[in-house]
């Protein structure tokens, strides 16, 4: 009696141990797979814009509950929740500026709706939103740069003459006329995407891109001489450094 009991116990224990080992291994494997998906998802796809006030991508993926309340409260049906096959993490809100841009609602209902803080409630003035930055990605086909008076992107910008201005350049073709280049000020552009939606070309020449993709950054150790000079009150380098002149071969000073 006792013996069979012991045997039973041993079997139970063995089963428990194999079960545990199996479960631990499976969990570990699954964890690795999921980590892989997670790491891949941290890349912000260029064509998907986050709603106003969204935390930087990694923070957003830690915070957004995928509830869609921002989507429901957006009066312009700008936002949608990502399906598994969409370019951003499944279930998170985004918009495609070319089809429906953000209308920059003054009361920012999407941010108000967000229960988690993934859309930062500190954003109170929509003009401070930084959903992305507009970039004139195709200077060859932009009608304005060809000397035509298109300028549609400029006209539709909610922050006209601030976020986007017209810079006078020379018409490359005629060499005598002026071309009005749409010029985006990345410090003011909210990334609403109105310009991208409005571009009259078949494929838009101006696109809003996520900040991470559009804005360059100086190396941390870079110092700009003129700024340092202003801070210090005098030039940091006492005299003009005399560096050897490097001229193309065959030329003389």
């Amino acid at each position: 009696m006792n013996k069979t009991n012991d045997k039973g116990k041993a079997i139970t224990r063995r089963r428990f141990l194999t079960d545990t080992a199996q479960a631990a291994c499976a969990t570990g494997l699954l964890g690795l797979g999921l980590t892989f998906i997670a790491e891949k998802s941290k890349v912000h796809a260029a064509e998907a814009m986050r709603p106003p006030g969204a935390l930087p991508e990694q923070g957003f993926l830690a915070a957004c509950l995928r509830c869609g309340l921002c989507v429901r409260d957006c009066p312009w049906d700008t936002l949608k929740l990502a399906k598994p096959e969409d370019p951003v993490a499944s279930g998170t809100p985004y918009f495609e500026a070319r089809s429906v841009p953000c209308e920059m609602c003054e009361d920012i209902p999407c941010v108000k709706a967000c229960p988690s803080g993934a859309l930062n409630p500190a954003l109170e003035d929509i003009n401070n939103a930084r959903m992305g930055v507009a970039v004139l990605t195709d200077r060859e086909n932009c009608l304005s740069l060809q000397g035509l008076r298109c300028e549609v992107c400029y006209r539709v910008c909610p922050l006209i003459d601030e976020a986007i201005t017209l810079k006078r350049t020379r018409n490359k073709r005629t060499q005598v006329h002026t071309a009005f280049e749409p010029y985006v000020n990345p410090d003011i552009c909210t990334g609403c995407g109105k310009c991208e939606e409005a571009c009259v070309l078949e494929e838009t020449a101006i696109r809003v891109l996520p900040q991470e993709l559009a804005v360059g950054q100086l190396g941390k150790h870079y110092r700009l001489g003129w700024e340092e000079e202003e801070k210090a009150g005098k030039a940091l380098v006492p005299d003009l450094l005399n560096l050897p002149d490097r001229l193309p071969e065959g030329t003389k000073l």
Partner: protein
Amino acid sequence: MKASQKAERTPGQETTETLGWWTAHKFLILRRLSQISVLGLFLLTPVVGIRVIDGNLSSSRLLNTVPMTDPLLALQTLAAFHPLELTAVLGALLVGGFYLLLGGRVFCSWVCPINPVTDLAGSFRRLFKIRSSYRLSRSARYWLLALVLVLPTVTGVLVWEFINPIALAYRGILFGMGTGWILILAIFLFDLIVSQRGWCGHLCPLGAFYGITGKISPVQMSAARRDKCNDCMDCYAVCPEPHILPPALKPSKNKSPVLKPLDCTRCGRCIDVCAQQVFEYQINMPGTVKDQPDTQRSLAK
């Protein structure tokens, strides 16, 4: 002889014959109604524009005021070191408290959209007599639950939400399914072909989470009149967690007739199918149900 008898028996048939169709299907129907109504309330917004409850199972807003949040999801954001806004915290406490009061895994059987899917796989198994099943470890779901809570800390993002089929199903129905149905089909096929009750009974981390809340919940299922049990085995056929039946129904010692609150989904299907009406819902303050002499409870009635 006995085996063939078992194979021919349709669970609940005897109850239908002796006590009527409604008694034999009451909780099944109520449960389906509950699942449909919750989804229906959510659907009012996108379909007819009446805003009773917005959002989805992950987080929602009732009547434009009351916030509700999946407590396991809230825990994940905290594990990812995101300082959750008060709205979501309140929502999580509300939902967590609600299910704690009502029985933990009542979520599974009365609300969760995956439950009808795995229930269907279970019925198909019975119908087509599919018996082969890969035996998964009973503790697998707790491992998964731990994984769900640890990965956000490691990776900094809510990893589980990439594949969470429960959230995905609701989100899909309310906001657009896309290819999400593949995952739901995969769960169905997994339960049907690979492992019996594999998903809800062994793997689902949300079920494990609500199971833990259900452990201290006052709403319990009890084999109160177990002395009447005539071993027809119908309850074993329908219970999504059949391993909890023997300890309550046929205790080795004078154990309590309450079905293990950690695993029981409070679906009430055992009440339905049992022609002897052995089972009942009970409200027991946590800690008051001790192991007790066999039939004390039923004698007291």
